[in-house]
């Protein structure tokens, strides 16, 4: 299936883009992350949470949505 992935904050430094669509046939969110880690090795060491269709989910969740957002914490103020 085609999944749109959104990257926030400093994650875009690892991916060099804010958003991309990829074809992915895996089952779990964690499998998608593994795929992204091999594409963007620097992403693996970043702290972030995952949202699937605008809901924050654990990484062992089944992929069911067409939009995944990777969200790091921000500290600035």
């Amino acid at each position: 299936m085609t999944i749109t992935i959104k990257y926030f904050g400093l994650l875009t430094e690892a991916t060099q883009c804010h958003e991309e669509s990829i074809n992915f046939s895996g089952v779990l969110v964690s499998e998608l992350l593994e795929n992204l880690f091999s594409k963007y090795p620097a992403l693996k060491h970043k702290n972030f949470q995952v949202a699937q269709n605008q809901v924050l989910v654990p990484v062992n969740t089944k992929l069911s949505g067409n939009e995944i957002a990777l969200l790091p914490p921000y500290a600035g103020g």
Partner: protein
Amino acid sequence: MNRYSRHIILNEIGQSGQDKLSNAKVLVVGAGGLGCPILQYLAAAGIGSIGIIDFDVVDITNLQRQVLFGTASLGQNKAEAAKKRLQDLNDAINIKAYPEQLSYKNAVNLFKQYDIIVDGTDNFETRYLINDACIIANKPLVFGAIYKFEGQVSVFNHQNGPSYRCLFPNPPQKGSVPNCSEIGVLGVLPGIIGTMQANEVLKLILGIGDVLSGKLLCYNALTLQTITLNITKSNNEIQKVLKTQHLFHKKQMTNNACEVDIIDISISEMLSKSNIQLIDVREPHETPKVENLPITYIPLSELENSLDKIDPNKVKGLFCQSGIRSKRAVSILQDHNINNCVNIIEGAPEIINYLNNQHS
């Protein structure tokens, strides 16, 4: 004319709403990029009692975005300089400046004196401290944070809603996420995010609209895109804070107490420290074993005869199956004048569970 007439003619506010604002007590932590717009709008709106806590002084590089200050404020404490400006903006409200650092010692007692806490700080350590103190003092937290051109807004701990730890359970390692002074920030961004925070405060007090509880709003100033994500509450994360709430009080007492206290910390906090030694004090046959981390195995029964295995230069984090024997072990080490020992509150199974839930 009444100062608040433009509020009062709104059906959703009226005189009764304005009275709610006058009776409200709001504490703003940090009078910087976020704190300035938050404070400006809260004072103008007539929040009856506003607290401002900030230990920092106004610097020339602040003026690009911290709109309460001018060149005349340079070198002044931010809480006091903000109070001076705000009291001129609205002399009918009560403003208290705390020119000091928020700490484990003062946070809970200070928060108890206010109805709503607003986070305008610029570092994770204080953000987690604020979150945990809000859970302990049972106060809603209006959260805002920024990174370059992006911002996040949420309301935590509101009517049994999620906390910041339900979103991000563990503080990132120190230095892994740069702050504004290191990477820069678009000056107007904290103005937008801080104003959104002030809006949430007013909605909370007035009881109108939909509060951003259980949701995280993400804003991008370059694309003007906003995305709102749903956060699930984690009772486990909140219970962990409540279970360790004695930490706050213990730290409060360390100045005048002679006895040595045992410090309890979570595995996530432990792993965020550098130069650590993890010590498993269970007997050799006990499972599950924690893998993928260097572990020193010293059963509690042999601890006093194995002190040479303890690295004096490292922070020692002790754990067992449930957290009881490791506490005893910390106490034994302290009796031998071995410093820098902490008790990891999780047992081995929970530590393994934690490690499995990490990305890498």
